[in-house]
């Protein structure tokens, strides 16, 4: 990927991320967050993670942000604007953020691992197909690899259902519990005389 494109995408992600934090109006924040997630999905795609990029857009920029916008609309919280911000909290927030970034930059600057570029570690699709280990044993994945394509949705699916079958079921249960929990939480409390 050309460096310019990376810097553009990083600028979109971080710029809209900054707008989420600084905007006074919650609707501006929510829309900036959606744009931030789109930039982030593009960064995922630039890392050859097409499937993750797609679900980032579908789940975050689509479902989650629509939910946020619905709630903002529902609560009608315009009245919260125009209050004086808490100066101590802002100063400590900026201080913690600067400290964290400094620390990460120091660590990244001192480790050899971080100097890997995509050219140093190129994807070897043919090798993977020829080795025929693990996922590449499946004909559909092997054929894609031989055709020079990265079947990453298939590979993630293979990893998930080959190694993490139990975890998938736990996550399914979690989503069920979450759904039931939301229904219980949003039910209006009945009057003491009514059925509990």
């Amino acid at each position, binding site marked *: 990927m050309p460096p310019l494109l990376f810097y553009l995408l990083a600028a979109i992600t971080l710029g809209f991320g900054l707008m989420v934090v600084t905007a006074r109006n919650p609707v501006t924040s929510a829309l900036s*967050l959606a744009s931030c997630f789109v930039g982030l999905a593009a960064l995922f795609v630039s890392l050859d993670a097409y499937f993750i990029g797609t679900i980032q857009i579908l789940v975050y920029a689509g479902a989650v942000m629509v939910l946020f916008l619905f709630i903002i609309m529902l609560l009608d919280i315009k009245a919260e604007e125009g209050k004086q911000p808490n100066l101590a909290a802002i100063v400590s927030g900026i201080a913690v953020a600067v400290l964290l970034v400094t620390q990460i930059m120091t660590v990244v600057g001192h480790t050899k691992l971080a100097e*890997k570029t995509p050219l140093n570690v190129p994807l070897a699709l043919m090798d993977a197909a020829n080795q025929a280990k693990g996922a590449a044993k499946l004909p559909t994945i092997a054929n894609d690899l031989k055709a020079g394509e990265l079947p990453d949705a298939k590979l993630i699916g293979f990893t*998930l259902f080959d190694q993490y079958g139990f975890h998938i079921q736990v996550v399914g249960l979690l989503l069920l519990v979450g759904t039931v929990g939301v229904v219980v*939480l949003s039910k209006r409390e009945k009057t003491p005389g009514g059925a509990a």
Partner: protein
Amino acid sequence: MITLGHYLIVSGMLFALGLAGVIARRNILIIYMCLEMMLSAANLALVGFSRFHLSGGLPDYTAQSLVFFTITVAAAEVAVGLAIIVALFRTRQSVDTEVITKLQG
């Protein structure tokens, strides 16, 4: 040339932005959005490590499976969290964290 370090720094900066937002803002909805941003920033680091740690010529899909689980859990968390915020707003008529101090003792 773009290295793994570039991605890690972008991820760290996005996480720091989210953290600053959680500390500095008082609107509970915006705090929640910043939490989502921090989760996504961690995902970026995971996908970066996945791409640069090849196993048999392919990216390490264990990390991307973890990202898949993170996104699923985050989606469930948003649904439950927003339901709690709506319930909170119903009783307090506010989303300001300085008004909601019942647990402060």
